[in-house]
């Protein structure tokens, strides 16, 4: 009886798993394996017509990619986006979470919804909206700057400002998501810790510094990690707002991969870029996890 039930359960388990595992295997893991193989070949537009023309070229694609100015330009742009936008997004969302969960705060749900709304919006649509906000003459952004006495900026037309403009939009678009994770982290901090600090005469600011921030350390790491991984994949913002310009100042690694692969059909090369991007993301993740281990706070 027992073994019969066990056998039945085993069979049911595989039946339940079959659709998901097949789909994930074929459409997620298999492409990654093929992608690596592809990156070692000279697969191009002719190969799409007849696969026989494909040759194995070893590490040639990696060598030529790592030796090209285009790749390093995209790498710099992506790193700029990640290391300016990432910390900014985390700080803004942490501040937002602390304010919105404050014990004195009322209408919490309304504020939370307002801050979260951009997360839900379609990236392409808001990129179109922000392109107008950044208009050098009529845009809301320069109008606001003028009110503050700051001269107009040609946001998307100036290679110096194009990437910061994209960063600003990305932070606006994503901070609500991280904020929510921080709110969840804040809720889990035991109330007694605050009460004890209050008894000791700690001010509101001191309570944030000595109770809230240390207790949030794991959440902080988690948020930084997913922000880092997500930001490295930046694509739609430059695709819609700048097409990588001006003078290639907003070409990101993902955009470069897209151009190589789907505009020029240099699939071998594009796959090499995809894997390099993956390795970079992985290294970033490892470093952050290491930092976390080193500091057990």
């Amino acid at each position, binding site marked *: 009886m027992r073994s019969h039930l066990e056998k039945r359960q085993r069979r049911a388990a595989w039946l339940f798993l079959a659709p998901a595992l097949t789909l994930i295997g074929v459409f997620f893991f*298999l492409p990654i394996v093929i992608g690596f193989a592809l990156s070692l070949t000279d697969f191009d537009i002719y190969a799409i017509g007849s696969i026989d023309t494909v040759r194995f070229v070893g590490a040639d694609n990696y060598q030529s990619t790592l030796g090209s100015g285009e790749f390093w330009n995209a790498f710099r742009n992506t790193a700029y986006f990640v290391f300016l936008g990432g910390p900014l997004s985390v700080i803004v969302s942490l501040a937002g979470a602390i304010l919105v969960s404050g014990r004195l705060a009322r*209408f919490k749900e309304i504020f939370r919804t307002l801050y979260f709304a951009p997360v839900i*919006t379609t990236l392409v*649509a808001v990129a179109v*909206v922000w392109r107008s906000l950044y208009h050098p003459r009529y845009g809301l952004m320069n*109008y606001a700057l003028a009110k503050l006495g700051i001269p107009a900026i040609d946001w998307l037309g100036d290679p110096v400002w194009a990437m910061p403009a994209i960063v600003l939009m990305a932070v606006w678009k994503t901070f609500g*998501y991280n904020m929510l994770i921080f709110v969840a982290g804040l809720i889990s901090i035991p109330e007694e810790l605050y009460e004890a600090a209050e008894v000791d005469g700690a001010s509101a600011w001191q309570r944030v510094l000595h109770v809230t921030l240390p207790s949030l350390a794991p959440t902080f790491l988690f948020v930084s990690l997913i922000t880092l991984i997500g930001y490295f994949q930046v694509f739609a913002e430059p695709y819609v707002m700048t097409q990588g310009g001006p003078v290639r100042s907003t070409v990101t690694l993902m955009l470069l991969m897209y151009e190589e692969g789907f505009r020029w059909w240099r699939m071998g090369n594009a796959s090499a870029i*995809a894997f390099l991007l993956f390795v970079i993301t992985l290294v970033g993740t490892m470093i952050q996890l290491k930092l976390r281990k080193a500091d057990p706070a």
Partner: protein
Amino acid sequence: MNKRMQTVLLHVVLTVIGLVTIAPLAWMVGASFMPVGEAASYPPRFIPSRPTLEHYIALFTRLDIARNFMNSAFITITATMISVLVNAMAGYAFAKLRFGGRDRLFKFLLAGMMIPAQVGMLPLFLLLKNLGLVNTYMGIMIPSFASIFAIFLVRQYVLSVPDELLDAARMDGAGEFRIFWTIVLPIVRPILVTLAAFTFISTWNDFMWPLIILSDESKYTLPVALANLAGEHVQDTELMMAGAMVTIAPVMIVFLFFQRVYYQGIMAGGVKG
């Protein structure tokens, strides 16, 4: 500073952040109803001087955006329904059914979550090309039918279902599929609703994959059609804002309805949605 002052100050700050956050969207709504040229007035206006529907009418007649809307709706609804079922079944199996190698397999999948899906995008395209699925709705949907994150989310939730309940049903002679359908599914409904909301919103908003897969303009989803229009109609700001409105409105409505479960999903899984 006394408590009253603190409270007032806090709400001033919260309101200012809220206004700044919502300003781009408010401007989009206003500009979409403005007569031609008014979105380029200085100082910028939020309220149309003479509200008009002409841009919405142009979108749905001249530019046939209804077609793209239907494409998006069909793809999103189908993908959401299928993926919820597929992932619910797998999540349940990982949580409650005993079989050899279960934990190792699950750990392997979790490790796979570290890999951004974009890494496999080029070969996935070639794969679908060989299957004849390029430039089809199926080609857009099929990679999103199963998701490791969704399986993880369901598994965590199903773990809280008591084993005794399932064992009792087994003793009564119920088959595994019937147990899943009549006992498990009703209990885990909340997480499935969360999952459906997640999948709906992310599928609707997806851009890069449909952009790659579709070549036929009549098959474009809304985001792809909008990006395409934005390239051709750079000057028609009011028209573009109406297009952005049509694209964003459905997800916003879904979100307002399912707000609570959506938040719960993020807070529970705490992972990308």
